[in-house]
């Protein structure tokens, strides 16, 4: 008996259901109407209508990062697809698994400059892990299933499936996911055992070791975080993490040094600089982290564990490179560590901790307190204290507020911290928060925002209202693009060229215009009550937290400087940026 034939649009829906998709984020248009029609006639998949396609992609990222499942996006051809490009690039940089379906003009019109035609696969080729233009409904099932496989296996990333309108009408046979095997893509998940043994032997010799962990642990899943905790406990070594890896190791633990890098802690960066053995798990030696390459941990041997072979030896030479999934490799490493009954140099380690405690005493995250104005760091501290015992998820926009959030909000669990690290996309936080809230309806989801960033995707408050996603937008309103102003202060003689947030809207009234609740806090004295009011409000809230306009984010490693050349908040005069440093971003 011949299998039942479905239309391309029906194939899309059936494949999504078979892939376990329950929610998609999208925006309709001419070239995806058949898929929207098929959506209308089913009830297994929920469609969240955003207000801008960029918002759809960030929302899907939020959904993905907070659940570990791929996020799914549906947009129309032409402007729908081009509006999605920023989000796709963001997901590529931060290794977020997404499947983005774009409509395309009918196959016979492709290349004719047809209405709302654009070369979507051409435009998105460099900003996706892979993409497909589907030429007939016959290919559609295979491509749909392959897309999920590619997005989620190996180093995760966004993929695009471009589906011409006639293909959505055309009928073809549907095949289940179990019948589709990708022809070429076989990422390596198990690490080479000999290399892992060599790594264990090297770790055993360490006198000044450090774990440097990253987003790869989060990508690997909660089990990898659990194994990381176990291994760090077994060794007794200090651990730091990148911005993207926060939460993989509990911030309340004694072995935790805080974040490293440009705005990392004094202890984390100095420990990186002076270490003799560095164990990098799932971090990619980003320039925000390494600072000056030739002065990066100059006396260390480096072990680098990464699922993507191209991350190893890209920027920093690894003495031992291990290609594999963080969870799998950690599992083997712990087993080998135990079977070898490794004895570490306890007295050297004690000395190392003594040195680290000395750096800790510098209290690099401290700031000048005030009774009159709200210091931004204080606002985050209070937010943390008042929300930490709940099921809280934090997203951010991009700027100083993002760094203060990373420094002063502390994470105990993975997948609770969502931020745009690699691309640094202002406008990420609100739609991402909506994506998180849709996936976790009962959680407290807060977007820590800046007054400039929030305006980039502010239209998504309307989405939050429509879908009753009670996200809280906590704006650290300093009336400046603070991060830009800080750099202008440091590098351009304090000439604040176009970094003042002129003509700001009244955020309380703006909230009300959307039907949300607006709250404003102006003094430290009223802050706690207002934060509690925000938490107790059942729907979306825009919280306008009026903070010190001129606070800068410290500590800071200026561009082109080494880890042990940090500027500290109480000594900003020490700021020295070389001419070469000025050329860097």
């Amino acid at each position, binding site marked *: 008996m011949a299998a039942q034939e479905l239309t391309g649009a029906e194939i899309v829906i059936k494949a999504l259901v078979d892939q376990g998709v329950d929610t998609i984020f999208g925006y309709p248009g001419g070239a995806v109407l058949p898929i929207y029609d098929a959506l209308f006639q089913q009830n297994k998949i929920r469609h969240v209508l955003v207000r801008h396609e960029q918002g759809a992609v960030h929302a899907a990222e939020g959904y993905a990062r907070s659940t570990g499942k791929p996020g799914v996006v549906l947009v129309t051809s032409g402007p729908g697809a081009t509006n999605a490009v920023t989000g796709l690039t963001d997901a590529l940089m931060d290794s977020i698994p997404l499947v983005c379906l774009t409509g395309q003009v009918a196959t016979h019109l492709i290349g004719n400059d047809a209405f709302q035609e654009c070369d979507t696969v051409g435009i998105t*080729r460099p900003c996706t892990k892979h993409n497909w*233009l589907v030429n007939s409904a016959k290919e559609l099932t295979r491509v749909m299933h392959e897309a999920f496989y590619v997005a989620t296996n190996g180093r995760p990333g966004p993929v695009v499936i471009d589906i011409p309108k006639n293909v959505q009408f055309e009928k073809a046979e549907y095949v289940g996911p179990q019948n589709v095997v990708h022809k070429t893509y076989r990422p390596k998940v198990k690490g080479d055992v000999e290399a892992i043994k060599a790594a264990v032997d090297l770790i055993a010799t360490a006198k000044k070791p450090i774990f440097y962990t990253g987003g790869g642990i989060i990508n690997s899943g909660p089990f990898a975080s659990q194994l990381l905790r176990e291994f760090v406990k077994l060794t007794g070594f200090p651990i730091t993490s990148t911005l993207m890896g926060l939460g993989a190791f509990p911030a309340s633990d004694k072995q935790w040094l805080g974040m490293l890098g440009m705005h990392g802690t004094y202890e984390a960066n100095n420990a990186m600089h002076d270490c003799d053995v560095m164990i990098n798990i799932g971090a990619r030696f980003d320039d925000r982290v390494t600072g000056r390459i030739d002065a990066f941990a100059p006396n260390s041997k480096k072990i680098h564990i990464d699922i993507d072979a191209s991350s190893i*030896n890209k920027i920093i030479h690894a003495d031992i490179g291990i290609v594999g999934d963080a969870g799998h490799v950690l599992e083997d490493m712990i087993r080998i560590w135990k079977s070898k009954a490794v004895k570490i140099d306890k007295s050297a380690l004690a000395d190392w901790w003594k040195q680290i405690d000395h750096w800790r005493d510098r209290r690099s995250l401290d700031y000048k307190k005030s009774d009159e104005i709200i210091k931004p760091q204080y606002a985050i501290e209070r937010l943390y204290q008042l929300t930490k015992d709940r099921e809280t998820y934090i997203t951010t926009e991009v700027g100083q507020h993002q760094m203060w959030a990373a420094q002063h909000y502390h994470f105990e669990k993975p997948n609770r911290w969502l931020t745009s690290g690699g691309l640094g996309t202002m406008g990420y936080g609100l739609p991402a928060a909506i994506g998180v809230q849709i996936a976790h309806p009962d959680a407290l989801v807060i977007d820590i925002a800046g007054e400039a960033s929030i305006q980039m995707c502010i239209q998504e408050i309307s989405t939050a209202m429509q879908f009753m996603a009670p996200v809280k937008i906590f704006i650290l309103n300093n009336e400046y693009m603070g991060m830009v102003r800080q750099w202008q202060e440091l590098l351009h003689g304090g000439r604040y060229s176009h970094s003042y947030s002129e003509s700001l809207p009244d955020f309380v009234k703006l909230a009300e215009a959307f039907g949300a609740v607006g709250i404003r806090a102006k003094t430290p004295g009223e802050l706690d009550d207002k934060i509690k009011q925000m938490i107790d409000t059942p729907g979306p809230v825009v919280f306008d937290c009026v903070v010190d306009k001129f606070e800068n984010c410290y500590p800071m490693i200026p561009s082109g400087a080494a880890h042990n050349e940090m500027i500290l908040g109480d000594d900003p005069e020490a700021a020295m940026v070389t001419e070469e440093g000025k050329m860097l971003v």
Partner: protein
Amino acid sequence: MSNESNIERHTIAVLVDNEAGVLARVIGLFSGRGYNIESLTVAEVDQAEHTSRITVVTVGTPMVIEQIKAQLARLVPVHKVVDLTVDTKAVEREMALIKVSGSGDKRVEALRLSDAFRARVIDTTHNSFVFEVTGAPDKIDAFIGLMRPLGLVDVSRTGVVAIARGPEAM
């Protein structure tokens, strides 16, 4: 960490699934990441399997060459990447079609030299030749150099194709 003095030239063979856009992916990788392409050739090599073989000649520091190979290998439709300069001793060949126009002594000299290079004449008019010459790229460079003063007007080169010596497949 690039050290300008240790630039190497490598010939890399890439076996890819012959799907739409695969060449654009490879070329986009090189241009997007600022790698050099000295030459690139591509053609289907197995119709039943739908595989094409790309031969790319590139230059860079050892670290960059390693990156190029890793970046190629992570492209989804790539089956295999082999560095023919490192992994094996390989034979490299390139073909060129070379048009020389002129008359008299120069014409005679061009013909004489083509014989020394085992170039074949594949088109002749009263005042021109088209030579077909095959060999390693530097042999072709040398031949073109000699033809230049003799009336060289047009050159078309295939770019390098290469294959490992010995019985094994790539």
